[in-house]
């Protein structure tokens, strides 16, 4: 083949290669959610209730223990699974019984779920039962939020703050009681 034709062929190959690299390294653009959608994330870790009652050790029992292990209460390690559900605009979109973590089932149960929702106003209600065997330790919270396209609403559980916390724009905001949320 003619030298110039060969060089032209090489230049074409190099340019095509560079073009393929350049194009596919950032194109076509990809949108993880639609232009009129937003996201709700539900995530937290929470210890279920202990399975069994704690027992107070007697003075005799305590004296038999090494000094560094003389805890007054002896509690069973295993935790109850927790029950969680989330309602979105009156519809239950998530419901699960989550097992405690750890080989001894003594760790917190975790949840991480995401829900793509249409942008706009939404009513949310979230429920947690930390003992599926007995009616105790129930938490519930509700919120109403106006989500713009692409915005993320986070539902976390912070025991120090009394239970569920909703975050919008990265900031915690107060939920509403059921009546307020259902109104309008």
């Amino acid at each position: 083949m003619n030298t110039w034709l060969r060089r032209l062929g090489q230049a074409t190959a190099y340019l095509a290669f560079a073009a393929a690299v350049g194009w596919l390294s950032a194109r076509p653009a990809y949108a993880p959610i639609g232009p009129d959608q937003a996201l709700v994330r539900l995530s937290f870790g929470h210890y279920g209730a202990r399975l069994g009652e704690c027992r107070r050790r007697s003075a005799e029992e305590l004296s038999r223990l090494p000094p560094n292990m003389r805890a007054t209460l002896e509690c069973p390690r295993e935790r109850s699974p927790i029950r969680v559900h989330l309602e979105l605009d009156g519809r239950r979109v998530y419901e699960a019984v989550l097992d405690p973590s750890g080989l001894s089932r003594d760790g917190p149960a975790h949840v991480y779920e995401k829900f793509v929702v249409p942008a706009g106003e939404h009513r949310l209600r979230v429920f947690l039962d930390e003992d599926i065997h007995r009616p105790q330790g129930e938490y519930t919270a509700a919120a109403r939020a106006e989500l713009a396209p692409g915005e993320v609403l986070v539902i976390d559980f912070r025991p120090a703050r009394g239970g569920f916390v909703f975050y919008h724009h990265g900031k915690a905001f107060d939920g509403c009681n059921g009546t307020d949320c259902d109104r309008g």
Partner: protein
Amino acid sequence: MSGRVRRASERALARIESAFNAAFGNECNPVYHSGALTIYFFWIVLVSGIYVFIFFETSIFGAYASVERLTHDQWYLGGVMRSLHRYASDAAVITLLVHLGREFVKGRYRGARWFSWFTGVPLLWMVFPLGITGYWLVWDRLAQYIAIATSELLDRLPLFTEPMARNFLLPESLSDRFFTLMAFLHLLGIPIFLVFGIWFHLLRVSGPRVNPPRRLALGSLGALLLLSLLLPAESQGPADLTRVPQALGLDWFYLAIYPLYDLTSADFLWALLAGGSLLLALVPWLPPVKREPAAVVDLANCNGCGRCYADCPFGAVTLQPRTDGRRHPLQAVVDPDLCTACGICAGACPSATPFRSVAELVSGIDMPRLTVHRLREATAAALHRASGPLRVVVYGCAHGADLSALARPGVVTQTLPCIGNLPPSFIDYVLRRAGADGVLLTGCRLGDCYFRLGNEWVVRRLAGTREPHLRSTVDRRRLKVVWAAPVDSGRLVAALNEFLQQLARLEPQRDPVPPPARVAGEAAR
């Protein structure tokens, strides 16, 4: 892959390679050097990465700003280096996939070659995480997207007690600890494993091509530099965990799994990745095939000269201390597990000369399936039967053009596992002793030998630059060499016709010198 599909794929690939051969020449064909180019691109990634790292702040709160400063305040060097870092990584994926696909289509993963294929699969599991963690470190919106998606994917595995994705739940959840781990993996952890992985991958390849030809290396670097200047790599805005990134400029070379994850589920993706990797790793045994018998050493004829050791493309021959008490210090030893039965060793053996006057020609190292003795006898018998004004012997390789297209009176064809299997003395022999008017050698295209080095060794042996030489007294006008892939049959036929015309113009061959009386049991000196 069924035989028909494979042949169609091979033909298509050969035509693509033909186009590159026309432009670049066989010696610089980028498809032939796809493996070496992949390693070369990683060298570019390494050098550019070291430069970028000098200015990079390994902190989730400073990373984005440091990359932005490098990209914009120092666009002429830092920006170019960043772009080169990205584009060379992408280019490496292209050449890696070409390399993998090409070896698959050409069936170069079976038998003793399983090792290189098998050890190549874990490399994929290193290359892609290396790219993913690199994008993570920029900590822009793209990094945010892949960090969360990767965490969600990893959370599906029973690895972590607490969901990793919770690290990216809220801006206040972010911590440097996790980011530092990513930086460690990208900068040191994965690259170290990758280097060891490449070493393993090439362990059973003798004299591997790890560097592309200089012209190709410079051309590729030039193309990536031009791309870096015209289309600099840029970040996509600082990460913002309060929003879902939209309209991301996704690097489809490394990040295509994420849209697939969005479309399906973590379970589906893990099943696909694990199943696909397992299937890929098991390809050499699907379906199982009977291996060709390995080369055999005959110590009585082996003087430990080391030519087979030097020529074996797969390191199957080693030289070890003599075990039979003969005066030569070394002997050739074949490891059957590594032998691909190409026969290049037999072609290199000085005792494989057909001029030896023994009834049973036994060479120091030989192929059980087609010994040099049988080759000599078959050639002589076929020439004896051949009719026609001119008698030509065609020695061809089983992986090159089909020799059946050359059938015509006076033309004798002999198919060898590899053209490197032919001792050069056979050319001399058939011209001087067996009464042939010409010899045509054909094998895989130059630079694309099925057994890596066979045709390269033949070229050097004929040129007298590699032992065993073709004697200089052999009339080169009666020898033609045509490198032809299966799709080049037409070209091979045309070359034979041209060769026959050329031979017809030459003065007739003298009557062949009859072979001397053969002596049984002659040993190599």
